[in-house]
């Protein structure tokens, strides 16, 4: 069954990719969608079997590497963590596959698109079911490839090509860290499969490793290297710049890859390796700081963006930050919980945005929308559900709310309960980010659906609800966005969590226990901030819309700083891109051309001509001249020989 789940999407990808012409558009859609739905159904079975009945297992396929002691297999390891990811990935992917049938209906390379989606799903499933680091790396780079292909799907657009390359390269920077981390793990443990490593970790708790010129606590430096990979994949501060640009891809791609699944791979990695990270407290501190900072940073940028997809993209970035700082304070269950609920409501938001874009004839600028709620009421309702879930709306006293209410509050509470400096840092940034999350979510909702329309007549009059094949899948996600929190709370972070995780993530029950018993004000504060955010958005975009430009003008430097995304792109262009090209040109013309060739072959050639002319004068024709020259040669040789023998 595990093998089927992983390889059905690959079969779909190959069929649609290589025989797309034969199958036709409709045929490719039917093949890929039905295989994916089959995989999703099987995943649910696996979830019950593994998650609830505790039947974790590993299926060995065949040998991959075998060089000296560096041995590893292709294998599928299915424990609770994997089962959860199986469900998230296959369900969202199946939804997106079906949705794409409607969304991409007018595209001319439908088989290619469906094939890429399935290929992505295969790599993602390989990633989450790996039983060693190298296979995870395989899935890791594989999803990167699929992401590259899908961002650049409309390859005739230069901006899409640029975004695709950027995504691949920024991820590669992180992957260098990942690769070195694996090399280091092998050096330390002599193995790269999880079971061996996890067993040996306690024995290496105090090992010191000499890396990059100084002595380090071995596990800390290795975890940091691996975390670099996670930062790239999950678009954390510093390596986040590719994610907003990735929105150049078709919207279903954004929903599947850049919201629900691939970008959460970094969080998954930290949870998967939690038995190692637990022994590297300093690394966890870094994880917390990076996560909290990203949550805050991305939220500030989200406040001012005008592209509907970019707002959601920054929101994703910010939510990933939440997951990381949950992991950073050892609340891995909470991180995975939020990963799961986030997959539902963020995919819902993206696909809802897709329906809006579809209705508006590919208009993504919210300044040219407004008043749409009459035109597309179903989409409007679904977006409300998604936004409320994202904001974590609920009633604290009664413990009733949308999915995000359970998972996000759990994270913020866990950060508070950590009672450490970084825990407090994460708590406060998390609370502020919650305020901003509510603001930008409802700013999006109000700008798009409320007020007088700013769209031109023609577009507005023709705006229409998306076809059924696009709307129905959204109901699946909406159900998840409403219920997933309440239903799975007990298993992921409640009383049942130890039995549920069954060792798949490092479960420290004290962390979650403490999180349940923090002061009342700390529990209620996030909700208050959320309501304040919603209220402010209402005030600025519904009640008195003239306030928004005034505020932007009053705080112009701050506004620009946020609007220009803290100038990261400009900075990186100056620091990395331009110098690399400059150096490349310099090395080529000056290094290779002038110095090496100039002194080397070309120079020698010129010098030879010169010497040959002089030498021709030496050709006297007298035998003794030649004999003398030979003698000198012999002397030199003999001298050298004697010296070398000494």
């Amino acid at each position, binding site marked *: 069954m595990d093998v089927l789940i992983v390889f059905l999407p690959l079969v779909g990808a190959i069929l649609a990719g290589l025989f797309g012409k034969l199958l036709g558009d409709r045929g490719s859609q039917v093949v890929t969608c039905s295989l994916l739905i089959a995989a999703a159904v099987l995943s649910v079975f696996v979830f019950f079997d593994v998650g609830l009945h505790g039947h974790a297992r590993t299926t060995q396929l065949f040998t991959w590497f075998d060089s000296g002691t*560096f041995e590893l297999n292709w294998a599928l390891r299915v424990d609770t963590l994997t089962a959860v990811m199986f469900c998230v990935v296959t369900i969202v992917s199946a939804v997106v596959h079906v949705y794409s049938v409607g969304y991409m209906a007018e595209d001319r390379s439908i088989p290619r698109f469906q094939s890429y989606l399935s290929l992505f799903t295969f790599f993602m499933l390989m990633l989450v079911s790996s039983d060693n680091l190298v296979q995870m790396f395989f899935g890791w780079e594989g999803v990167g490839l699929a992401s590259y292909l899908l961002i650049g799907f409309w390859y*005739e657009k230069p901006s899409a090509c640029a975004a695709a390359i950027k995504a691949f390269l920024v991820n590669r920077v992180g992957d260098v860290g990942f690769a070195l981390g694996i090399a280091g793990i092998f050096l330390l443990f002599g193995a790269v499969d999880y079971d061996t490593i996890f067993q040996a970790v306690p024995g290496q708790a105090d090992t010191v490793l000499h890396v990059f010129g100084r002595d380090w606590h071995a596990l800390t430096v290795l975890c940091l290297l691996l975390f670099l990979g996670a930062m790239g994949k999950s678009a954390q501060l510093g390596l986040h710049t590719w994610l907003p640009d990735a929105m150049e891809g078709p919207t279903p791609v954004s929903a599947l890859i850049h919201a629900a699944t691939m970008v959460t791979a970094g969080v998954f990695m930290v949870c998967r390796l939690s038995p190692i990270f637990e022994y590297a407290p300093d690394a966890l501190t870094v994880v917390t700081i990076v996560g909290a900072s990203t949550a805050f940073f991305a939220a500030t940028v989200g406040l001012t963006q005008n592209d509907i997809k970019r707002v959601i993209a920054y929101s994703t970035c910010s939510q990933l930050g939440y997951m990381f700082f949950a992991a950073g304070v050892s609340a891995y269950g909470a991180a995975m919980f939020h990963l799961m609920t986030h997959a539902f409501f963020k995919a819902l938001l993206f696909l809802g945005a897709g329906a809006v874009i579809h209705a508006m004839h590919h208009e993504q600028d919210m300044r040219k929308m407004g008043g749409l709620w009459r035109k597309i009421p179903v989409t409007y309702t679904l977006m409300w559900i998604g936004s409320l879930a994202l904001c974590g709306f609920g009633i604290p006293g009664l413990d009733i709310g949308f999915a995000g209410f359970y998972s996000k509050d759990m994270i913020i509470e866990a950060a508070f309960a950590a009672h450490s400096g970084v825990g407090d840092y994460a708590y406060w940034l998390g609370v502020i980010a919650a305020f901003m999350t509510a603001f930008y979510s409802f700013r999006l909702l109000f700008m798009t659906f409320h007020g007088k329309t700013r769209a031109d007549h023609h577009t507005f009059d023709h705006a229409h609800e998306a076809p059924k094949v696009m709307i129905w899948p959204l109901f699946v996600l909406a159900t998840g966005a409403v219920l997933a929190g309440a239903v799975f709370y007990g298993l992921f972070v409640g009383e049942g969590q130890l039995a549920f995780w069954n060792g798949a993530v490092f479960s420290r029950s004290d962390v979650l226990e403490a999180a349940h018993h923090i002061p009342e004000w700390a529990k209620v504060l996030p909700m208050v901030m959320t309501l304040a955010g919603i209220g402010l958005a209402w005030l600025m975009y519904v009640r008195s819309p003239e306030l928004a430009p005034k505020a932007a003008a009053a705080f112009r430097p701050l506004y620009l700083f946020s609007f220009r995304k803290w100038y990261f792109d400009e900075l990186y262009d100056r620091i990395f891109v331009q110098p690399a090209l400059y150096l*490349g040109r310099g090395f080529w013309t000056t290094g290779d051309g002038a110095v090496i060739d100039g002194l080397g072959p070309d120079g020698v050639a010129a010098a030879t001509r010169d010497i040959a002319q002089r030498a021709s004068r030496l050709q006297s024709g007298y035998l003794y001249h030649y004999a003398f020259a030979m003698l000198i040669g012999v002397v030199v040789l003999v001298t050298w020989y004697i010296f070398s023998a000494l």
Partner: protein
Amino acid sequence: MSSWPLLSLVTFLPLVGAVFILAIRGEQAVVSRNARYVALWTSLITFALSLFIWFGFKPGTADFQFVEKADWIKSFGISYHMGVDGISMPFVLLSTLLTPLCVLASWKMEKRVKEYMIAFLVLETLMVGTFCALDFVAFYMFFEGVLIPMFLIIGVWGGPRRVYSAFKFFLFTLAGSVLMLLAILAIYFAGGTTDIPTLISQGHLDPQLQIWLWLAFFASFAVKIPMWPVHTWLPDAHVEAPTAGSVILAGVLLKMGGYGFLRFSLPMLPEATHFFAPLVFTLSVVAIIYTSLVALVQKDMKKLIAYSSVAHMGFVTVGIFTITQQGLAGAVFQMLSHGIVSAALFLVVGVVYDRLHTREIERYGGLANSMPRYSLVFMVFMLASVGLPGTSGFVGEFLVIVGAFQVNTWVALLTASGMVLGATYMLWLYRKTIFGALTKPDLKAMADLELREKLVFAPLIALAIFFGVYPKPLLDIMGPSVDHLIQNYQLALEAGHLPSLAMLLH
């Protein structure tokens, strides 16, 4: 099969084919056609024969197999000695695989077809001989002999600046070889034999002598592989060489340098190898970063791939001189993978060059629209070159990084940075040629891959993916030999006294 002189057969069969072609007489068109077919069939049969080496090869031992030995010049103790171990055997197959593909890829070559095919068959004999020879004299003859047909291929069938490039190629390589010849003579005088296995097993040479010998060998191999800063002949040679010439050059000839390090420098000169390893690391890391940056600003497709070869070979030299199981196996694997992938990339460039007669990147763009099959093939090799897991390129690169991390983390870090830089220029190249809007009228009319071209690419794609997913067969073959190499090396280091800089200056 063991009674058959299989290695000699594989080595000299192409020569027989060349003689046949030489004998073809008649009208120009008929001669050309016959020459093509004879060359194709000869090389195919040679490849089929070489498969027997693969199947008959016993993994699990580091000994030389299929050994043939006969007296040659008795008074000097020089013999005709052939044999392969786990390191050289895959290279024999790489050579015999690429030659028929080259013949097929040059099917439309019209200029002096007869001589062209002869050159390739002779080249095949010399390449296979280089990897099989176990006597210094024979090795040197094969190793240097390779220069001649390659020189002709570039100089006669090359592009506009072919003569400059051919001479540059010849002189660079020759300069190194002369020093190697001196070294071989010195070893002969010191060791009393030219028999390579004997020299390896008996081998303790005076460390100080080793230093000089090592440098002499290094001069030859570093040019061949090539290492920075003696790499500048390679881009020029590639740009001017005909497609098939580039394929052999990148696919096999560069590997002779790496093979030389593995066969001579490491086992015969262990102390010197230890002494010079930091130098090699430095040059390799410089090569990886420097040439990657240079590749980033190229305007000519072939030049870009040529520079990428230098960077990839930087991985190889790092791997070899880590002297760890993973580093060495990774280096050998990287060479084999690069032999497949870079050869294929030059073929990929050749496809569009045949149609448009330019390699300028700016002239292309949007080929995905008119040539979807071609785009897919290019994509596979682009990804293999970038080292995506699941392709052969990943296995070698990754093992080298694992090996390097055990020796020096800075080297590992800087080597790994090649992962990013390599992706940068390859993705950029792919975007410029394949993606974008199809606006240029002459590109719109370009036909997708024809059957012959598909036949050329099919085996290469299959190998690049197969060995990425299942590298075990190759790793198993080379494993014992690599192991043996490391053991000998460590024994020598324990026994001998390490040379120091003071000794060198003495």
